[in-house]
């Protein structure tokens, strides 16, 4: 388990982390999710020993690792831009951690072959990083990090430099890999879809603090505050209520507690229909309904409908 206790970090006048505490459960894949500048990468780098905290402790598997240099933390770190050793072959990149530990060559070769097999780069031993695609480089970097059998795997926006298609593939692949290897993994991302689709737990960060920690479902259904709600999915504002667009119920006639609105646009997205509406107060609202519902209501521009919140997730607007 990785535990962070009351960690703060300043860069000059800028507060990167403000009294942050976090526990990453053993064997889990946990995501640190937040906008850029929220402090998530700094937190990861502090856990990896690449930055030192001004205050607070980092505990890895029960041992205080706060003052321990990265060399002796037994971590694997994967960087956004791969940090491939450009002058070394794929084989030497993956073998690096073992060769600096003076492991016998036969053992190193065996381990490298095994890992390259796991990450799907068998047969690429003699290539150089600049002969690989971005996705292949990142898989090589993962194999390199896993070679030393780290207690913890830290991934800093590992797919951030890849195009959307490769990113989605690698994301699925990482999840499967994690299910095989089971190493405690902490992943930094600003992409909520990425976090939701692969993580067991998510810590949502904003402004140098962790806003909420929980499973993807918990965070989506029971966000602690408007920021978390807005960061994890679309939000519509109904009067002083914040709701998910798919949680807005539309009715053709007045219902108790419902707000009157005029349809300003109907957008057909296949199965789903997005309805843009204007409240009597002049505020714009977006609702998402199914095609069947839209057909029943016979929605058209200029019609008057009544809106109310009908889902589990309702927050009071700040």
């Amino acid at each position, binding site marked *: 388990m990785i535990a962070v206790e009351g960690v703060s970090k300043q860069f000059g006048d800028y507060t990167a982390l403000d009294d942050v505490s976090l526990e990453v459960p053993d064997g889990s894949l946990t995501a640190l999710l937040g906008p850029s500048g929220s402090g998530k990468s700094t937190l990861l780098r502090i856990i*990896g*020993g*690449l930055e030192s905290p001004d205050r607070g402790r980092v505990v890895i598997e029960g041992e205080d690792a706060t003052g321990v*240099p*990265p*060399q*002796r*933390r037994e*971590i*694997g*770190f994967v*960087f956004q*831009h791969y*940090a*491939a*050793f*450009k*002058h070394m072959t794929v084989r030497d990149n993956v073998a*690096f*951690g073992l060769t*600096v*530990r003076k492991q016998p060559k036969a053992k190193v070769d065996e381990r490298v072959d095994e890992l390259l097999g796991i990450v799907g780069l068998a047969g690429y031993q003699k290539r150089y990083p*600049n002969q690989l695609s971005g996705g292949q480089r990142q898989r090589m*970097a993962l194999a*390199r*990090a896993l*070679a*030393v059998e780290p207690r913890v795997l830290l991934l800093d926006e590992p797919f951030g430099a890849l195009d959307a298609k490769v990113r989605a593939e690698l994301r699925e692949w990482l999840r499967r890999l994690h299910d095989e290897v089971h190493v405690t993994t902490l992943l930094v991302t600003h992409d909520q879809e990425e976090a939701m689709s692969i993580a067991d737990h998510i810590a949502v960060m904003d402004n140098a603090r962790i806003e909420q920690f929980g499973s993807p479902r918990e965070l989506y259904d029971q966000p602690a505050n408007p920021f978390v709600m807005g960061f994890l999915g679309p939000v519509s504002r109904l009067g002083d209520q914040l709701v998910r667009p798919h949680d807005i119920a539309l009715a053709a006639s007045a219902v108790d507690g419902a707000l009157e609105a005029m349809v300003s646009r109907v957008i057909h997205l296949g199965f789903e229909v997005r309805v843009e509406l204007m409240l009597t107060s002049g505020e714009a609202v977006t609702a998402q309904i199914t095609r069947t519902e839209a057909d029943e209501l016979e929605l058209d521009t200029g019609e008057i409908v009544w809106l109310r919140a009908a889902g589990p997730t309702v927050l009071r607007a700040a």
Partner: protein
Amino acid sequence: MTVSRPWRIALRTIGLAYLAALLLVPVAVIFYRTFEHGIGAVWESVTTPAAVSAFWLTLEVTAIAVPLNTVFGIVMAMQLARGRFRGKALLNALIDLPFAISPVVIGLSLILVYGVNGWFGQALADAGIQVIFSTPGIVLATIFVSLPFVVREVTPVLREVGDEQEQAAATLGAGRWQTFWRITLPSIRWGVAYGVVLSVARSIGEFGAVSVVSGKISGETETLTLLVEKRFANFDLAGAYAASALLALIALLTLLAMTLIKPRREEEDHA
């Protein structure tokens, strides 16, 4: 900017003529004059005891100055590219001092510090060490004038490469030395090589500063450039040309090395 065809040709002609008049013609004339009376005369002229001694002294000085400046240059470049400390801008400016000061002034300042009447002169004399008018002085002068090259070549490469690979090495368990030898040095090697070649060229060709501190004792403290000057001043034109040709040959080899290294260094820069 688009330039019409006649203009382009005119500009190119002017550029080439300028290069030819200032560089190609003089160098060609030196070679022509050198070999005018046959190779035998040249060989005789460059194998006199004074010439052989000058040749070896030049190599000796270069062999001491360049490695020292290479080590210093790499250390300094790492400080300038990575370090965060007060006075970095000042240090950065100081590195260029040898470019800014005339070599003659550098020679004179060395005499003021290490000469018999200089700051350390008496102490050094008491210890039995003669710096000025001796090989150590020539080495010092050469180090001084060739100091900036490695720093200036390696610093931008280090900045461009960044420190992520070094951080990755640290997380994989590599200590500082292991990281330096296995990661940092290989990733800047062509920048270092280019800096070394420039330093060698400058060390071999240095005249002004060396001329002031060497004392010009034939067969002892006379380098190749000093030999050329002496022969020229003594109206031994053939001898001066022969020694010049030797220097020019070394310069051409340097140029060749630079041409071979430069593309790889730029590749490294933008990798």
